[in-house]
């Protein structure tokens, strides 16, 4: 038994021949974030601190759809959401509808630790952020030229679009899973366990390209995008509606708890049962196992364990 950590940067329709200039910066970012997590675990930081730290790094990286680099709503604004959960205490915090908070995941942690509530949203969450003095910034910090372009393309196609959707030639109007408007790809997440079996999970996202103002996805929903208890910690990514409907993160834990399945089987079962092309997740168990199944074309992911195993992969 030792520590283990996994991170993701979203699952979806990622082309096998993804251009080098798109792949390399994301792989480098995953490597960097993984290293941040590994070093924190080696220094004895709690898994809750580790997942927060790593997700903050991912939020600060503009290549992923969370924090800086969040995709835009139909009004051209950002509305970020995040959640965090501690496995031992099952305490959790969640936020959504954030417009100015640099690190949504840290605000979720403050909701967990400094309010009697779990979930704060929109203006109330922004007011809480100011009260707590967390770092906030101008909306322009979050908005990248790539995401303005992405929103324009989505509006031209008159549909909401997900991060890794390929530009569709105008004459071909194929309705794919990823074009129906409920995907949530490019979301980031981290799960970690220490050598004492303490678990934690965190997830953060900007949501969907061209989403309606006010739309809430699976990321801030405990049991859907994020879950941790004494068995495992899970962070999910993909089509928000499928993940909420399937209570995907909780179901991995429920299968371990109620059916006695090992982590990998539980995770694989949950992903197989979901509609194809909609879901990916990362999970660690109390005993340091890791599972990273997905039923999409790919999922940006990385993991490491105390015994020296480490990997970064997309497909």
């Amino acid at each position, binding site marked *: 038994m030792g520590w283990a950590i996994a991170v993701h940067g979203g699952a979806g329709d990622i082309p096998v021949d993804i251009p080098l200039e798109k792949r390399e910066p994301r792989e480098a970012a995953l490597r960097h974030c993984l290293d941040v997590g590994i070093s924190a675990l080696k220094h004895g930081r709690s898994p809750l601190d580790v997942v927060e730290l790593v997700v903050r790094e991912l939020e600060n990286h503009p290549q992923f759809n969370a924090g800086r680099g969040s995709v835009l709503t139909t009004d051209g604004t950002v509305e970020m959401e995040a959640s965090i959960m501690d496995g031992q205490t*099952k*305490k*959790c915090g*969640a936020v*959504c*509808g954030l417009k100015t908070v640099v690190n949504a995941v840290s605000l979720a942690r403050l909701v967990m630790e400094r*309010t*009697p*509530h*779990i*979930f*704060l*949203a*929109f*203006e*109330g*969450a922004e*007011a*809480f952020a100011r009260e707590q003095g967390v770092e906030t910034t101008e909306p322009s910090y979050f908005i990248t030229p790539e995401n303005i372009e992405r929103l324009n393309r989505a509006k031209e196609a008159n549909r*909401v679009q997900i991060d890794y959707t390929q530009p569709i030639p105008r004459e071909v109007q194929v309705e794919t899973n990823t074009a*129906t*408007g*409920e995907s949530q790809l490019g979301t980031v997440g981290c799960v970690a366990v220490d050598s004492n079996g303490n678990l934690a999970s965190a997830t953060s996202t900007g949501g969907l390209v061209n*989403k*309606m*103002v*006010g*739309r*809430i*996805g699976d990321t801030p*929903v*405990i*049991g*859907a995008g994020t*879950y941790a208890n004494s068995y495992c910690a899970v962070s999910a990514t993909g089509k*928000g*509606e499928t993940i*909420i*409907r*399937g*209570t995907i993160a*909780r*179901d991995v834990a*429920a*299968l371990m708890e*109620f*059916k006695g399945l090992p982590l990998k089987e539980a995770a694989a079962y949950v992903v197989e049962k979901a509609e194809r092309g909609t879901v990916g997740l990362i999970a660690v168990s109390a005993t340091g196992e890791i599972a990273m199944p997905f039923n999409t074309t790919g999922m940006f992911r990385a993991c490491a364990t105390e015994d020296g195993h480490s990997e970064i992969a997309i497909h």
Partner: protein
Amino acid sequence: MTGWAIAVHGGAGVDPNLPLHRQEEAKKLLTRCLYIGISALNTNLPAIDVVELVVRELETDPLFNSGRGSALTEKGTVEMEASIMEGTKRKYGAVSGVTTVKNPVSLARLVMEKSPHSYLAFSGAEDFAREQGVELADSDYFITQDNFDYRIPTPGLDSSCAAEVDNPMVMNGLPISLYAPETVGCVVVDKEGRCAAATSTGGLMNKRSGRIGDSPIIGAGTYACNLCGVSCTGEGEAILRATLAREVAAVMEYKGLRLQEAVDFVIKERLDEGKAGLIAVSSNGEVACGFNANGMFRGCATEDGFIEVGIWE
């Protein structure tokens, strides 16, 4: 073909000193809503329509904490939330932070059917309500004398909380005499064995603006699948942490428990310190309820003529 079954609730965690006339009013309303559901079921309305119809009625009556009569935020405003789910396809819709919509449950249904998304909140939900032309009202409609009187005195300005001394029972950090437990919900299985669930609330009395509870959260306050339909009420944070509504279905699915066993199991094993209650129906026509709070406003009926309305254990 199975027989239909229906259950309704008006919240868990009831003040033991609640005046008798309020208890009678609550029972009368629950009974009336049950009969609305029963006659809809007898005319073969699908389960999803029945739960919406019944919850609309509960929202419209000011007695419970949803729609008209919703609890107020610390700013003295209403922020209502609701969700609805259909079991055969597990389609769902949810809304939060709604301030002018007369029937949040019907807006949740419209999110499910007419929007590209499944959960809308605050100004976005309000915009969508206007777009869809649902019935709106100004705040006078929602804020009744009763819920205004229930508002918590600003700390320091008023220390005369006699009720608190007489009755140390606390829900969500509030003395039970002030706690507004009365989230409403309905679960139905129709003759075709289709389950549905809906839940609606004004949320926690004196809540911080922007607080989201369990009612709009699929898997927490509301859940339906091909096995059962569940609606929960009580301390929202405990219900969220426990993914309480999904747990009933999960232990039926993964442990093979029957409905009542599943309900008893989750109330006993999955709530930590939290106080809550739930109603549930199974696709084969069973109905069950369970709670560990001090009482739950509830009623249930089945096609074979069984009908029951109660508050206490």
